[in-house]
């Protein structure tokens, strides 16, 4: 296939110009003719019966157009969950209704009770204040492990013990227990993988309109997957024909998973727009974002890792309580199961693994996929155990890893690696990334510096994390068998214009990942044309055939592969057109550097001329349709498995417990790289979200179910002055099963970094004689200080 060397180059992003000049177009920037504005009346209680809702005074307020309550939506479905997980005994998971407005009782703080629509935001806000809601507070439950205890308050009256499902994976527990009993050393860790608030800086925003003439709805949404929203909203919630709904995700200001899900507000605004016959807009306030955007993580886990006398891992046993919050969000059920349990092999040859998960409802914000989704939980568990085991066994944490790594395999000459927990890894060279990381770090020097620091009464620590993740989500047949209610293919439509310029329509959605550049590089490279001659179109269900959207580091591996399939079809057809023009056989035509050439001759015709001929087919093969325009769907053969090595060096201030990051080294192998600048940027951002989890972030609920740090004044997000410059490098082990050989880079940083930081802090404390096993994340100064002083 033709190339012009664009693949692999750090091309500057084509989308940047609009963002740096203030011309991005985010949903809240859009004001439609006859726009109206919505404000919600929400529950202040985590669990409370709704006794009455009085909207009479509010309806009389200036500018108010309509107010709806749960009673008005009694006949409307709730938002669905997209993944069915079954109980160990085969029963279907408990899936209570998640209504658009609650009528009976509120199940978490922020549950929507009424929507107020007015001419202006100001009027809607004033009127929402005038709605009087009488509620009777009920006892609530916040903690997942407590929620399954007998007698705990029930979040849903028809879900006994608040249990959505229980689930297990891996080797039979008896085998794992037996192996564990034989172990020479067992490292045990009981810990909390805390709840995180995704906090994309653009708050969620929706603007929905209805045209009574065409009977068509248009929804602008800050979503990572507009087609999926359309499918769920039409088919499951509102029962409106899909072809009568256009969903547009314009520029989206970050998602990190939180904008995958179909939220109640999207469907409700769409419903309201028909009721009032005018467009309705709602943009979340940050305080609402804290209470409503699906949170991430929230696992309570006990994990045990057994080693033989030589330090080889012999068994891993994991019991996790996963907090799902008050309702099942779109992909909530697969996160603690198929995205977590399946990753517990890590990079190691562990022969016996069993994981047991209980997924639980509580009176808290729903929990779902947040950057990494399940895989950070698995990695945190494994990597914390490894470093802690090294401390306990007085072994070197790097050496311990080398001893246990799965040997290198490329997935072509050597087969993929079959894990104990269902997945088959595609290709990997795990010792390679650790070796490179140690080199970059200057490991021996750093250990020496640590010793010197300890001698001077300072606490310096080194922490490791060698991670693997499963992304490029995912083969439809596999996820279907596991309970996913959707396919996970992607579409890629390549339209060659008569002038040889190319428009590409992808079902992936860019909200910072740089698709407009990376995808254009792929297309321009393969067609041998200029980057400027390619336009990437995404985020509009009326122009893109279909799409499953962007999450799970899947866009290039799946969406890019669909585009490649269309390009192959274009080149194949182009060869026929060129052959006709050059009076040769299509089999004799080669395509390279943007030209179709008769093999072994200098007879050739350019791509642009072939394109023009396809649309002005005066001299044209008889049996060939005009036009040069192909659409393809790609369903991957397997997940892709990026991996890497993150190493952190930290210093802990003895007096205050404050942790400062001295160095952060990351070597990531994400397969082939199309644009190294963009990949590096993804890694940086991911690393900082992991650092955020390790040191700064965590949703804090009080015992009454109030989120007590629901603003940036109390929820701590990493800022520029909390961080060092990062030292990054890459290794390339291509993916053997997709045409670009790419694996995915969006989540890698987040998955790798958190355990490296926590391990480094623990290592620092041990260097000062504080043999602490665990400190609960985030490692605030006070928690670290307490760990040193208890």
């Amino acid at each position, binding site marked *: 296939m033709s190339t012009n060397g664009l693949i692999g180059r750090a091309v500057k992003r084509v989308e940047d110009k609009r963002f740096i000049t203030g011309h991005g177009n985010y949903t809240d920037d859009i004001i439609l003719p006859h726009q109206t504005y919505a404000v919600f009346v929400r529950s*202040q209680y985590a669990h409370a019966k709704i006794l009455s809702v009085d909207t009479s005074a509010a309806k009389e307020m200036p500018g108010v157009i309509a107010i709806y309550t749960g009673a008005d939506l009694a006949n409307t479905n709730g938002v669905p969950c997209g993944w069915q997980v079954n109980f160990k005994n085969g029963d279907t998971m408990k899936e209570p209704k998640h209504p658009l407005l609650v009528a009976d009782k509120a199940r978490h703080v922020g549950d929507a009770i009424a929507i107020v629509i007015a001419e202006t935001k100001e009027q809607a806000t004033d009127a929402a204040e005038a709605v009087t809601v009488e509620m009777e507070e009920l006892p609530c439950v916040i903690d997942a492990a407590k929620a399954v205890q007998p007698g705990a308050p029930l979040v849903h009256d028809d879900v006994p013990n608040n249990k959505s499902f229980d689930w297990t994976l891996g080797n039979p527990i008896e085998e794992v227990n037996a192996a564990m009993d034989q172990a020479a050393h067992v490292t045990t860790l009981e810990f909390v993988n805390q709840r995180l608030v995704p906090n994309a800086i653009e708050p969620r925003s929706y603007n929905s309109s209805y045209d009574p003439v065409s009977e068509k709805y248009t929804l602008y949404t800050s979503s990572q997957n507009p087609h999926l929203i359309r499918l769920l909203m039409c088919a499951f919630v509102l029962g409106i024909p899909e072809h009568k709904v256009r969903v547009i995700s314009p520029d989206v200001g970050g998602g990190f998973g939180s904008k995958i899900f179909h939220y109640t507000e999207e469907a409700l605004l769409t419903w309201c727009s028909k009721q009032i016959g005018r467009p309705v807009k709602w943009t979340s306030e940050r*305080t609402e974002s*804290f*209470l409503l955007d699906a949170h991430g993580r929230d696992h309570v886990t006990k994990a045990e890792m057994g080693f033989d006398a030589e330090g080889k891992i012999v068994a891993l046993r994991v019991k996790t309580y996963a907090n799902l919050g008050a309702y099942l969000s779109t992909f909530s059920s697969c996160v603690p199961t198929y995205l977590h349990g399946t990753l517990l092999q890590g990079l190691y040859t562990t022969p016996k693994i069993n994981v047991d998960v209980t997924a639980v409802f509580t009176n808290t914000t729903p929990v779902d996929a947040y950057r990494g989704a399940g895989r950070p939980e698995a990695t945190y568990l494994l990597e914390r155990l490894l470093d802690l085991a090294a401390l306990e066994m007085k072994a070197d944490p790097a050496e311990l890893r080398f001893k246990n790594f799965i040997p290198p395999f490329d997935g072509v000459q050597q087969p993929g690696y079959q894990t104990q927990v269902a997945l088959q890894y595609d290709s990997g060279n795990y010792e390679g990334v650790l070796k490179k990381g140690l080199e970059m770090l200057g490991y021996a020097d750093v250990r020496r510096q640590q010793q010197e620091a300890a001698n001077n009464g300072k606490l310096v620590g080194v922490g490791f994390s060698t991670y693997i993740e499963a992304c490029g989500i995912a083969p439809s047949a596999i996820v279907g068998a596991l309970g996913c209610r959707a396919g996970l293919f992607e579409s890629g439509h390549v339209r060659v214009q008569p002038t040889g310029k190319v428009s590409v329509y992808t079902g992936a959605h860019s909200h910072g990942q740089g698709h407009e550049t990376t995808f254009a590089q792929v297309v321009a490279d393969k067609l041998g044309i200029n980057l400027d001659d390619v336009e990437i179109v995404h985020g509009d269900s009326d122009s893109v055939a279909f799409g499953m959207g962007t999450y799970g580091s899947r866009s290039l591996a799946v969406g890019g592969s669909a585009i490649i399939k269309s390009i192959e079809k274009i080149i194949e057809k182009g060869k026929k057109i060129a052959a006709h023009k050059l009076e040769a056989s299509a089999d004799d035509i080669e395509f390279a550097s943007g030209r179709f050439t008769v093999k072994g001759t200098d007879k050739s015709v350019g791509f642009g001329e072939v394109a023009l001929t396809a649309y002005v087919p005066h001299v044209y093969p008889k049996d060939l349709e005009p036009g040069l325009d192909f659409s393809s769907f790609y369903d991957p053969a397997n997940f892709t498995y990026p991996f890497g090595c993150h190493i952190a060096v930290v210093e802990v201030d003895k007096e205050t417990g404050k942790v400062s990051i001295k160095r952060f080294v990351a070597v990531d192998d994400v397969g082939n790289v199309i644009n190294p600048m963009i990949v590096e940027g993804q890694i940086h951002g991911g690393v900082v979200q992991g650092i955020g989890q390790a040191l700064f972030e965590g949703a804090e609920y009080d015992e*009454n179910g*109030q989120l007590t740090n629901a603003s940036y004044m*109390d929820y701590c997000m990493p800022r520029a002055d909390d961080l060092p410059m990062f030292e990054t490098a890459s290794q390339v082990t291509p993916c053997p099963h997709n045409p670009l050989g790419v694996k995915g880079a969006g989540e890698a940083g987040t998955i790798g970094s958190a355990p490296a930081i926590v391990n480094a802090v623990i290592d620092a404390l041990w260097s000062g004689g504080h043999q602490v096993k665990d400190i609960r994340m985030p490692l605030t100064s006070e928690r670290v200080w307490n760990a040193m002083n208890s």
Partner: protein
Amino acid sequence: MQLAGKHVLHAAPTRVWAILMNKDTLAHIVPGVSRLEQTGDHTYKSILDIKLGPVSGSFTGNLQLDDLQEPSAFTIKTQQNSKIGNANAAIAINLTPVGDNDTEIIFDGDVKLTGMLASLGNRVMGGVSNTLAKQFFSNLEKELDKEPAP
């Protein structure tokens, strides 16, 4: 949120008790009372205007003195609603005589907050409740000063 502490007053428990059980004096003691309307035995409807620096809130709700053990113990229960959030408190109060003519008041209870008060108030809510408790006792002292012992 826990609210606990103690305070010594220069009056015998019986006098302190009498003032706390009297609707008119109670209205002067509870911080921010703009209206207190008796609805039953030691049960009141209230409007409180709480102002602390930039924050001001008008709370409507009820106030109840419960578990009465004259003159040594009772519980203040209150539910207060406002546009910025609701507060629900149950605070056990013990009056212990100290010496001839003093009373040590020990209070211990829990304040439940919702809405903005809960989600945005963390940094200052401890201080707010301490301040209100202090105001309560300083108002109580003023009442004791006003009405000399018979």
